[in-house]
Every structure is written in C-alpha cells, then in structure tokens.
C-alpha cells in the first residue's frame, strides 16, 4: 500500500508539487496548505486528474503563527486518520540584501526556522498522542556549514535541521518517524535568479527521492541527490581556519 493520507505545508513550492504528483499516482489523499487560493485550485485539479483519491485545500500564510492551530483543526476535521506531514516551504532572500537589512535577515530566519518550528511543535504533539505517523521536513545542505555567500538562509535551515533531529529523538519512543530531507541545489522557483545552474538537480529527481523515503519511512536523514551526503562530509571536514578564507 503506497497510498498515503498526507498534509503538505507549502504545497505550491516547486519540489512539493512534484512530490504531490507522485503521491497522486499512488492514489493518495492529499491535504494542501499554501498562501494562494487560486494556485491551490489549479494544483488540486491537476492532482485529481493525475489520480489522487481526494485533494482538499486550505489557504493560509504559514508565516502567520496564529493560524497554525486552525490548520491542525482543519486537517483533523477533513482527515482524522492523517498519517504523514511534509513541511516543504521556505524562502531565500539575497545574502547581500540580508546583510544590509535587519528586517530582511530576521524575516528569513522567521520564515524558514521560527514558523516551521512552531508548526512542527503542534503536529509533533498531535502525532505523539496518536503514537504513529511520519513527519518529513525539507531543510537544506546549506544548513550544514555557515558560508560567506549564504549564511543567513543556511543558519535558518541549519537550525531547522537541529530542531528536527531533536524531534526525531523525542518521538522515537512513541513510534513516530521523523525524516530530515537535505536537498542540494535544485532548479526551482527559489533558485531561478541564479546563473549557471548546470550542476543543479531537477525538482522531479529530488521529488523521486523524497517520495521513496516517504514510502519506506527511511532514511532518517535523506541527502538528495545522493552525492551531497559525501560532498557535505568533505565540506564539514575542512578546518575552520581554511574554510573562513573560502569565498563560496
């Protein structure tokens, strides 16, 4: 049985859409949350045509922590036996802009880390009570080491990775699986403004890996594409006194 009952937070993101399509062909039941009602409607129609058993949508700004309980209530109401959540949203502002603007830097941290941690707290409690389920969270390889060119985004994603790691340990006794997804650079809306994306992975390829991990409930830490596990291993091993000189 591959079909799942899944809630996707940030359902209209490039990677999330590709994962949802794979879930649709498994005849899954999908609950989608994203900001734009209009986009959710187009997406829902597409997933139904591609085989989803049902698609329900909820328009909400996930940065708005006050709405988080509404999302849980809605999801419980629409699908009492929800078995999986996928947290798939994030933003990346330009590093240089963040350096020059406290507001932008804080917003970056807030969106990628604070609001995600808030949502995960609510859903962790929910699944812990039910003593089953799977929580999958998309973070980033950028969170593995602070780099000159992208450390604001990186620290937010790194913080989220640690949060999720702790959550995994906390939920282990209750049988809830927690998966950390660490994509390398991917050709998505978030990276469209970058030049020279030849080494970037396709969203569909990354989605294939995520879909497989959701199906199997492992690995607990997924690097995608797989090479990034080893690339990051090397990058983490570079001594700080050399690393700080690197301009990347």
């Amino acid at each position, binding site marked *: 049985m591959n079909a799942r009952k899944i809630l996707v937070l940030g359902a209209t993101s490039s990677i999330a859409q590709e994962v949802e399509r794979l879930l649709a062909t498994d005849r899954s039941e999908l609950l989608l949350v994203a900001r734009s009602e*209009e986009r959710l409607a187009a997406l829902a*129609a597409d997933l139904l045509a591609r085989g989803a058993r049902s698609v329900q949508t909820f328009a909400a700004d996930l940065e708005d922590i006050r709405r988080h309980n509404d999302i849980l209530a809605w999801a419980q109401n629409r699908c009492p036996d929800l078995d999986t959540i996928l947290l798939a949203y994030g933003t990346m502002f330009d590093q240089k802009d963040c350096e020059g603007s406290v507001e932008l830097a804080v917003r970056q941290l807030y969106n990628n880390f604070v609001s995600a941690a808030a949502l995960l707290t609510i859903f962790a409690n929910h699944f812990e009570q039910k003593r089953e389920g799977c929580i999958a969270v998309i973070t980033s390889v950028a969170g593995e080491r602070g780099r000159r060119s992208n450390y604001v985004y990186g620290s937010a994603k790194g913080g989220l990775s640690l949060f999720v790691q702790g959550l995994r340990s906390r939920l282990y006794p209750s049988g809830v699986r927690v998966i950390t997804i660490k994509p390398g650079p991917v050709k998505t*809306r978030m990276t469209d*403004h*970058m*030049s*020279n994306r030849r080494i970037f992975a396709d969203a569909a390829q990354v989605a294939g890996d995520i879909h497989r991990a959701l199906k199997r409930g492992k690995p607990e830490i997924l690097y995608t594409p797989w090479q990034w596990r080893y690339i990051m291993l090397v990058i983490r091993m570079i001594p700080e006194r050399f690393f700080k000189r690197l301009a990347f």
Partner: protein
Amino acid sequence: MSVTPSSIEHFSWGRYPRANHASIHWANWTDELPQILADAPSASLLPYGLGRSYGDSCLNNGRGVVECSRLNRILGFDTEQGILHCESGVSLSDILDVCVPKGWFLPVTPGTRFVTVGGAIANDVHGKNHHRAGTFGCHVRRLGLLRSDRGFLECSPDMNRDWFSATIGGLGLTGVITSAEIQLRPIQGPMIDHESIPFHSLDQFLALCRESDAQFEYTVAWIDALSGRDARGIFFRGNHSARPGTVNLNAAGPRVPFAFPTWVLNQLALKLFNHAYYQWNWLRKGKSALPYDSFFYPLDAIREWNLIYGDRGFLQYQCVIPNTDVPAFEELLRRIRQAGMGSFLGVMKQFGTIESPGMLSFPRPGLTLALDFPMQGDRTLRLMSDLDLLVQQSGGALYPAKDARMPPAMFKMSFPRWRDFQFFIDPKLSSSFWRRVIEES
C-alpha cells in the same frame, strides 16, 4: 516569477542556429505572466515550451524567452466526453499518461510526445492521421491567450475567432497561450494494429496511399533517400486496436551522452544504416500489434538523439508539394539523391484536405517530405536553396517549425496571409524566425 540572467548558448532541436538569450523569465503560475509581459520592453520576449522546434522559431537571439514548461497542470478532464482542459506547458506525454488508461487518445500527435500543448498549437502540428483528422488546431475547442495590450482573451471558433485563427499556427507571437481545451478521441486500448509494406517506387507509394487512406487512420512512409534511381521505402499504416496490452511510457531508454564527432555520420554510415533499416523492415513486413509508443514515437526511445549529428547540428527540410505536381516531387527526390546528402530520417506522407482554422498553418493538400541533413556548411544550404526553387515553382511551402534558413520571399509567397497576421502579433513578442522571414534585423 524570477529571471535567470543568461549568457549561455541556447539550441533548438536541430542545434542550428544557436542563440544567446539575454534573459530567461520563468513562469511558475499563470498569474505571474501579466507582470512578466508588463515589465518587458517591446518585441523582447518569446514564449518557450520544450524547445522541440528544429530551427529558430523557438529562439529569440539577443532577447528574452518566457519559460512556460512549468505551467503544466491539467485543469480538468471530462472522462465521459473526452475533453481535457490544461495549462499550456503540459506535455503531450503527460496527457497520454492520464488519458490512455481512461480510454482516450490525442486527436493528433506529432512524432515526439515531448512537446507542450502550447507548442502544438503555436506550430499547428500534424501527424500520421492528417488525412482523417487534420491538424492539432482542428481539435482545440478553446484557448486562453494573454496579451500585453488587451489582457486575457478567451478564444474559440465562436469567440474572438480572428484571434483563435491567428494563434493556431501563430508561432507563439500572438500572445502567451495560457491554457487550452482539447477534444480527445476514444480508444479501446493502448495497442495499434500495424502493417508495414515495402515499396520500390513513388507510384507504388501513391497507390498505397490511395488504398490505405480510407481504411487506415494512420499512414506514413519511411523513405531511403540515398538508394538508387527509384524511391525505395517502407509504408506504415495502422489503426487503434481493441487488443489488450500495456504501455510504460516512463521506462528509461538509452541517452545519447554527448555530441558525436561529425565524421561519425558520414555518407557511408548513412547508406549502411538505411540499407540495414530497409532490410530489417522488409523481414518484418506484414501485420502486427504494437504498443502505441513504438508506433508513434520510435525516436523518443533514444533520448537526445539530435546529438548524433554532432556539434554543428542538422537541418530538417520539410516541404509540401501539391498533389497535382508529382513530377516536381520526383525531381526533388532526384536532386537529393544526386547531391548525395540525404539522411536516414526521411519521412513521406500524403496530407488530406481537412482545412485548419490556423491563419499560418503549414499543412495543405499534397505530398509532404521531411528529411534531415547534417549541417555541412554552404554545401547543405546550397542544396536546400536548389530544392526551394522546385517547391516554389510547384506552389508548395516549407514548415516554419522545422526551418532555419528559408528566404523571406519564399515565406511570404507560401504563407500569403502573413500580412494579415502581422496585425495580431503582440507588441511585446518577437522571435528569431519572424525577424528573419520579415527581414528585420
């Protein structure tokens, strides 16, 4: 919505000519398009799908493109009536994935399934069933068109009819096609009852066309343009079958890993290939049942097959010659043979008489021939200019979607409605092809 600054070279499917696009604008959602158009200077953008046009009709050298391939959502599928509503970046492959299991098939399909619906409309593509079904545009019930000056227009044979007619075969210049509603055709299963028949002359080919067109929905011929005096080839014909079967479109086939050195495809290799292909098909002649993908899309099995022509790329020459002028067609084949420059992908088909709603549509009653030529510089271009004369004298035309070099005079003569069409071009859009055939720099 965001822009990729671009200094990389871009190719069309023929890898000739190349273009440097100044910017790539990604449309992730239809609601982002108005802003992209509003921000653009005049005549600076071209909607881009999967880049399967062979020449320069999908390029916009020195200017920008709007990537539409992420607008790939199916917005509705009425499985009772076979009506599919989708965004314009949906590929025909995606449609097949969804509609074949429900007993529906594309009304018209070109030789690759890796094109978008928007591209199929903008080039008004045709297929092996032209004699029965006409072009792709004949099956578009309505389409959404976003204009930089008029906003969103809903176009159909009854509503905004002129815009509908200009957009079908309109080379992506009349505005950004945002969505379309297509009438599919019912099928009983994914298999094709197929028959292949060797022929040894043009007369035999024409006789096979006459005999088959009434009984077979799909007809096409492969022709060995390098064989001796007579036109040798294999005639393929088929119908949708009621036999059960399964098709897996997603099985990964081989991929051409890099652009082959140009000496690989020399004249001898092509001759040997053609000979082997003929003999192999001769041995397999007769009837069989084929999964639809091997019948319609044999080349899709080898991903990036265009790389075998090497770094210089190739040109495709697809012309149509009116039925009344068979001698011109014979002469065309003779010239190609004489020049000794034919290729292994020669395709021949008799178009039917069903008229397309498209203003600049290419298919018209007659014989069409499509041949690949590895790009060998002036030699190749000279041969094509020779062929142009024959096509022009007979009142024929060349297919813009495959063209990279036809002279402006030829375009204007074979597409006489180009003047009317100009009125419908969106002020923000342009293409390398259009500037070339209209003689703008």
